[in-house]
């Protein structure tokens, strides 16, 4: 293709976008709304996924230390625990500290056990690199010296894994659905606009334009439509998310969680929105035209 033909196609596509007036506005705004929905939903789903992983990661192995274990023995145990496969961190919690937690959960009737009456053990709280590894780590920890017992919450933790797994499955399923819906709605809009221009395409064929020549401007116009349609939702999402990130930071941190850090997260999301918009706009145009290029 000659350079001036390339220029012509680009010029033609802009001209057509401009002169189609309300039709262009309508299809750009359809893309806008669809991508806005997709963007907000993706941001939500990705954070739900992140949060559910973090919640899973809150499942720890509790290693009860034999009563009467000395400080250096504890240190030794800690090192051993750290050297186990899949162990991420090991934290110490004294029995006094543990009693406080019990009182927090079960009321002050336990207050009487303070000091030497405290029936609880000192504890190492071991977190694993992956939530699913807690089980094997627990089994390995049980075999170590100075360990009374090691547990990870048993059925409760298993249920939590299950719930979180279900949530993520649903979120993923819904994301795929929404992606399909977005693709369909955008390409369907493009299809209607091209359907309404079939006479035009027919005339182009009649005056000797090849199919390739006709296709290019429509292809580009579809791409611009997608591109223009992704501007507003990207701006809205970027500002909205950054704002949300800021105002929820304090609250969520108090739970020990946080939303995905905006910078990289938004970059990926924006890229995805542009790609969906431009690709579906352009390819949708090509596919919709096929039928009218036969005469």
């Amino acid at each position, binding site marked *: 293709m000659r350079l001036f033909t390339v220029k012509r196609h680009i010029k033609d596509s802009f001209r057509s976008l401009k002169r*189609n007036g309300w039709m262009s506005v309508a299809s750009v705004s359809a893309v806008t709304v669809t991508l806005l929905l997709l963007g907000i939903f993706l941001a939500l789903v990705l954070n739900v996924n992140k949060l559910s992983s973090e919640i899973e990661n809150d499942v720890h192995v509790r290693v009860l230390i034999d009563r009467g274990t000395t400080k250096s023995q504890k240190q030794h145990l800690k090192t051993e625990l750290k050297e186990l496969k899949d162990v991420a961190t090991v934290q110490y919690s004294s029995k006094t500290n543990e009693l406080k937690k019990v009182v927090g959960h079960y009321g002050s009737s336990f207050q009487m056990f303070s000091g030497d009456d405290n029936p609880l053990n000192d504890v190492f709280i071991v977190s694993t690199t992956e939530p699913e590894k807690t089980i094997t780590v627990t089994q390995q920890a049980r075999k170590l010296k100075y360990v009374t017992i090691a547990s990870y919450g048993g059925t409760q933790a298993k249920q939590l894994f299950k719930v979180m797994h279900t949530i993520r499955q649903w979120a993923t399923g819904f994301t795929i659905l929404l992606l399909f819906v977005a693709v369909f709605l955008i390409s369907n809009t493009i299809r209607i606009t091209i359907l309404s221009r079939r006479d*035009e395409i027919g*005339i182009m064929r*009649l*005056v*000797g*334009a090849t199919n390739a*020549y006709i296709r290019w401007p429509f292809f580009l116009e579809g791409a611009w439509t997608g591109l223009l349609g992704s501007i507003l939702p990207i701006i809205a999402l970027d500002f909205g998310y950054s704002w949300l990130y800021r105002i929820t930071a304090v609250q969520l941190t108090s739970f020990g969680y946080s939303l995905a850090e905006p910078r990289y997260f938004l970059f990926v999301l924006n890229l995805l929105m542009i790609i969906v918009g431009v690709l579906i706009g352009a390819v949708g145009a090509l596919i919709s035209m096929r039928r009218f290029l036969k005469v």
Partner: protein
Amino acid sequence: MIQFINVSKKYNRTYALREINLRIEPGEFLYIVGPSGAGKSTLIKLLYRQIRPTSGLIRINKFNLTKMKNRNVPYLRRELGVVFQDFKLLPRLTTYENVAYAMEVTEKRPTIIRNRVMDVLNLVGLASKSRRFPDELSGGEQQRVAIARAIVNRPKIVIADEPTGNLDPQTSAEIINIFENVNRQGTSVIMATHNSEMVNQRPHRLIEVVQGQIVRDENKGAYHHAAIYR
């Protein structure tokens, strides 16, 4: 050279053309006349392969239209310049752009296009209306844009379907002059028309189509209808 051999065209159950045999030599000037609904436009649509014949064979120069693949059709059409009965202007392009489009599709250089387009617009008297959109033009002006587009590529064959239907006699005369000039330079001209005055005063080869059949083929044929308005 254009050749029709036993060409028939059927729409649903009715024949629009029936067993047409016709041969048009390069450089000929041919009128097609006949009553409304006779099959003139059908014959012309077959020529630029908007439609395919139900049976029979059509050849234009090196092209065999009956066997031709869809993707080669544009190259046939570039050797033809067509004035459609309903103009078929692109509604969202200006006068200038409509005419230029027919050149652009052949990937001509921008400077060549610019000069040539303004030349033909001058020829049909529309240079001053080059920036108007079709719906801002009068019927006759639209028809002249269609004529300009048909000749802009200097095609080997010009085909015009009722090109003076919306033009006054004065402008019609200018248009027939243009076609005759083009013809003198070796281009074949095929024109379907109801303009009896024009046919009679500028005689050329004439075929008359009635109910899908060629009933007359005369070298300097006249349009017979002697004072029917009485």
